[in-house]
C-alpha cells in the first residue's frame, strides 16, 4: 500500500493532478475569505460550463489557441529557451493568415493548408529573429521577444490603418474569404437547404449559428501529438533537447548549438503563429482587429506550459483546464459578484506546485523510507 502510494507520487501526472487539487483548495480558501461560499461558487463554475452545449463549445474554442501557444512555450522550454514572444508570434500568424486568406482564392482545404503554412512561416521567422539575436549576439530571448510583442501589435494596428487593408470606418481589416473558414459545416449552414434544415431542428441552430464552432481544436490536438513526436522520436528533437539540457556537451559533440537555437525559436514561433491563423479562420470577424492590448494567448501559453511541466500532450489538458477556469471565472463574477481573480489565484497556486513538484518526490521518498524501516 505505502509502496504503491510512493510510486504513484513519483509520476509526473500524479504530481500535476495533486497541484491542481491544491489549486482548487487555495481558490476555495480565497473565496471563503472574500465572503463567498466556495461550494456554491465552484458548482456555479461547473454548471455554467455544462449547462449548455454552446458554453462547452465556447470553452473548446478558447482552448485551441491556448494549446498552440502552450506548445510554443513548452517546445522552447524543452530546449532551454524561454519564449515570452507568443503574443507577437500569434499576431504575426494572424496577419499572415488574413493576408493570404483574404487575397487569394484557392480551392477549399488547400486554402486552409496554405494559410496555416504561411502563418507558420511568418511567425516562425519572427520567432527565429529572437533566436538569431540570441545565437549571434547573446541577447537574451526574454528581452527580444517582449520587444517583438509590441512591434507586432503596432504592426497589426498600422496595417489596419492602411486604406487597402483596413475597412473604412471600422476597426477591422478585410476578412478571410469564407471558403477558407474552418467553421463546422461552414458553407452549408448559411445555404438555403442548411437554413431550412436548421429551422426544422431548433436544437442544432444555437450551436452551429450561435457559436464559432470550428475544427481548430482538432488541428491543435494533432499538432500537439506531432510536437511530441518531433521532440521525442526524431533526431531533431534529440538535438534540441541535448542543447537544452547541456549546451556545452552538445557543442563538444559536434551539435550545431546556434543553429539549433534558431530552429527552436522558428518552431516555437510557428506554433504560436498557428494559433493566430486558426483563430482568424475559425472565429468572427475572420479579420484583424485593432488591438488596444496584447491578445493574451501568448501569456496563457506560458501558464499552460508551466502547468503541463512542458509536456506537449499535457498541454492539451492544461489548456482545457485553463480555458474552463477562465470561462467559469467570468460566470461567477457575473452571477455571484464573486471576484474572477480567484481563478488567477488558483492558476498561480497550480503553477507553483507543479514547479515545486520535487516536494512530492520527497514525500514519496519518506514513505518509502518508512516502509524499509518497517521491513527491517
Amino acid at each position, binding site marked *: 500500500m505505502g509502496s504503491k502510494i510512493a510510486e504513484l507520487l513519483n509520476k509526473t501526472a500524479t504530481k500535476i493532478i495533486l497541484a491542481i487539487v491544491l489549486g482548487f483548495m487555495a481558490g476555495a480558501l480565497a473565496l471563503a475569505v472574500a465572503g463567498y461560499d466556495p461550494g456554491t461558487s465552484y458548482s456555479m463554475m461547473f454548471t455554467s460550463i455544462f449547462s449548455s452545449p454552446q458554453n462547452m463549445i465556447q470553452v473548446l474554442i478558447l482552448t485551441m489557441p491556448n494549446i498552440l501557444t502552450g506548445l510554443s512555450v513548452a517546445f522552447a522550454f524543452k530546449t532551454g529557451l524561454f519564449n515570452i514572444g507568443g503574443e507577437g508570434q500569434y499576431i504575426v500568424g494572424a496577419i499572415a493568415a488574413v493576408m493570404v486568406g483574404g487575397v487569394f482564392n484557392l480551392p477549399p482545404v488547400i486554402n486552409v493548408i496554405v494559410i496555416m503554412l504561411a502563418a507558420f512561416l511568418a511567425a516562425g521567422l519572427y520567432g527565429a529573429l529572437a533566436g538569431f539575436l540570441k545565437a549571434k549576439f547573446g541577447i537574451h530571448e526574454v528581452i527580444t521577444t517582449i520587444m517583438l510583442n509590441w512591434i507586432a501589435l503596432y504592426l497589426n494596428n498600422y496595417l489596419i490603418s492602411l486604406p487597402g487593408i483596413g475597412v473604412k470606418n471600422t476597426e477591422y481589416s478585410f476578412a478571410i474569404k469564407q471558403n477558407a473558414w474552418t467553421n463546422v459545416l461552414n458553407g452549408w449552414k448559411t445555404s438555403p437547404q442548411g437554413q431550412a434544415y436548421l429551422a426544422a431542428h431548433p436544437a442544432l441552430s444555437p450551436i452551429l449559428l450561435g457559436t464559432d464552432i470550428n475544427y481548430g481544436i482538432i488541428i491543435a490536438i494533432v499538432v500537439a501529438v506531432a510536437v511530441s513526436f518531433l521532440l521525442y*522520436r*526524431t*533526431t*531533431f528533437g*534529440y*538535438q534540441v*533537447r*541535448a542543447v537544452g*539540457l*547541456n549546451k*556545452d*556537451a*552538445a*557543442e*563538444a*559533440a*559536434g*551539435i*550545431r548549438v546556434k543553429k539549433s537555437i534558431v530552429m527552436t525559436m522558428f518552431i516555437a514561433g510557428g506554433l504560436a503563429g498557428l494559433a493566430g491563423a486558426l483563430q482568424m479562420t475559425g472565429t468572427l470577424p475572420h479579420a484583424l482587429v485593432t488591438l488596444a492590448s496584447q491578445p493574451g494567448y501568448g501569456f496563457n501559453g506560458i501558464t499552460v506550459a508551466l502547468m503541463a511541466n512542458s509536456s506537449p500532450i499535457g498541454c492539451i489538458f492544461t489548456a482545457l483546464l485553463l480555458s474552463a477556469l477562465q470561462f467559469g471565472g467570468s460566470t461567477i463574477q457575473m452571477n455571484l459578484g464573486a471576484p474572477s481573480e480567484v481563478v488567477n489565484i488558483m492558476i498561480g497556486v497550480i503553477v507553483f506546485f507543479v514547479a515545486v513538484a520535487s516536494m512530492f518526490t520527497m514525500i514519496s*521518498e519518506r514513505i*518509502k*523510507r518508512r516502509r*524499509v*524501516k518497517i521491513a*527491517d
Partner: protein
Amino acid sequence: MKNQQADAVEMQSIYKYFDNFCALNAVNLKVRRGSIHALLGENGAGKTTLMNILYGLYRPDGGKILINGEPVEMKNPNVAIEHKIGMVHQHFKLVENFTVVQNIILGQEVVKAGCVLDLARARKQVMDLSKTYGLAVDPDAKIEDISVGMQQRVEILKALYRGVEILILDEPTAVLTPQEINELVNIMHNLTEDGKTIIIITHKLKEIKKSSEYCTIIRRGKYIDTVVVKSVSEQQLASMMVGREVSLVVAKAKADPGDIIFRIDNLTVEDNRKIERVKELSLYVKRGEIVGIAGIDGNGQKELVEAITCLTKVKAGKISINGAELQNTSPHYVVENGIATIHEDRQKRGLVLDFPVKYNLILENYNKPQFAGRSILKEPAIHQFAEDSIRRYDIRPEDCASEPARALSGGNQQKVIIARELSENPELLLAFQPTRGLDVGAIEFIHSALIKHRDSGHSILLISFELDEIMNVSDRICVLYDGRIVAEFLQGEVDENEIGLLMAGGERKNGI
C-alpha cells in the same frame, strides 16, 4: 570534550536503496579521531553515497550514525556542518562566473558595517589560508577560467575556511599532479596533527599507502574489511577491492607507427583573459601511435584541447588531420574529420546528465544510419547498442540504459564517455585525463582498450596529469611546460624523475 575515547565517526549497518537497487548493504565505518582513513572500492561501490549520507545529503534507509560517540540524525548538510563535518565533492559545486574568493566565502561572507561585503578582508583571509597550507590559487580568477586542478584546490580551501573538524575528501587527488599530491598529503598530516579527522576516497593505492592509517574496503555496496594500511601491500589492496587479481601495469607490444596523420604547427592560443597559454607549439601524431603529453595542470593542456576541438579560437598556427585544416572551424567539423575527444570535465563537456545513458552513448552519432532513418530515432537499435556498450565496458549497474547519466557513479559516467568515443573507431582519439576517477580494475581495462585502438591502426593523443599513465601507455612522450613542448622521448628512454623535473620547468641535464 566529554567523549575523548570515542571515534570521530561511526556508521553502523548503513542501508541505502535507489528505487529497488541496493547501493549500500549494511556498511560499517569507524573512523578514529585524528586519523586519516581511506575508503576504497570499485566505481559504483557506494563510496560517494556513503559519504553523502554522512554529510546529510542522502537519508539512509537503515542504520545509525554516531559523531564523537553520540547518535546524530543527519537530516541535512546543515546538521553535518553543525557537527563540523565538511565535504569536498567528487564533482565540484562551484559557481562558474564567480571568482575564487567569492566562491570560497559563499555562505560565510565577511561583512563590514553590518551588511557590506568586505571582499578585501575575505581575500586576505583566503590568501593566508592558501599560503599556510600551500594550496596555490589565483584569488581573482573566475572559476570558468581556471583548470580543474585549481578548482579542486578551491574546494579544499572552501572546506578549510569553514573550520571543519572532520573533512571528507571525495577523490580530491583525481586531478592533481604528483607534486601537488605530495603537498596535499603533507597538508592532511598537518591537519590531523591539529586533531582533525580526514576521510579520503581515492582510487590511487599509492596515495593510500602514503597518507592513510586505516582503509575500509567496500565492494558492490557491501562492507568487506577495514585494514591497517601499513600491514598490507598495494597489490593486496587492489585484489581485496576488485575481488580478483589485477595487474597494475599494462602489457603492450612495440608500436609500429605509419605516416603522420595529425599535426600541429606553431600553435598559439589565448585564454578568456587574453593570456597566451599555448605558445608556438608544434607536434605530430603518426598512424598507430600513442603520443602522450606529460605536464603539470595549467601549462596549456586545457587550451590545447579546446583549440584542437574548435571550442576556442586559435590566435596563430595550424592544426590538421589527414591534410584537412581544423583551426577555427567548428566542433562539428572536427568530429566529422574523425577526431573523438574525451574531455577533462566530464559533466560539463562529456555528458548530458539528464539524458538517459543510452542517449549519452550516441551523442555524436545520433544522426548515423544505424541509429536514425529518415530523421526518426531507431529506439530498439539505440537500446541494443547501449546494452552492448554497457556489457563491453562493464558500466554498472548493468540495467542503467534508460537511467539518467546523473544516477551513475563518477567512474561509471567516465566509462560511458569512453565507450562512446571509441565506438566509431576514430582516426584520432584525443584523450584528456581518460581515467580520471576510475578504479584500478577499470584503468587496466581502459588502458588496454587504448592500446587495442592503436593496434588497429589508429592514433591517440593522450594528455594526462598522471605521469604513471603517460609512462605506461605512450609510445612517444612530449613534455609540456608553460605552453611549449620542451622535450620529447620515446617510451623507456628516460625515467620518471627526469620527466618530472622537466615538467616542473627544469633544464634537461644532457641538453637537447
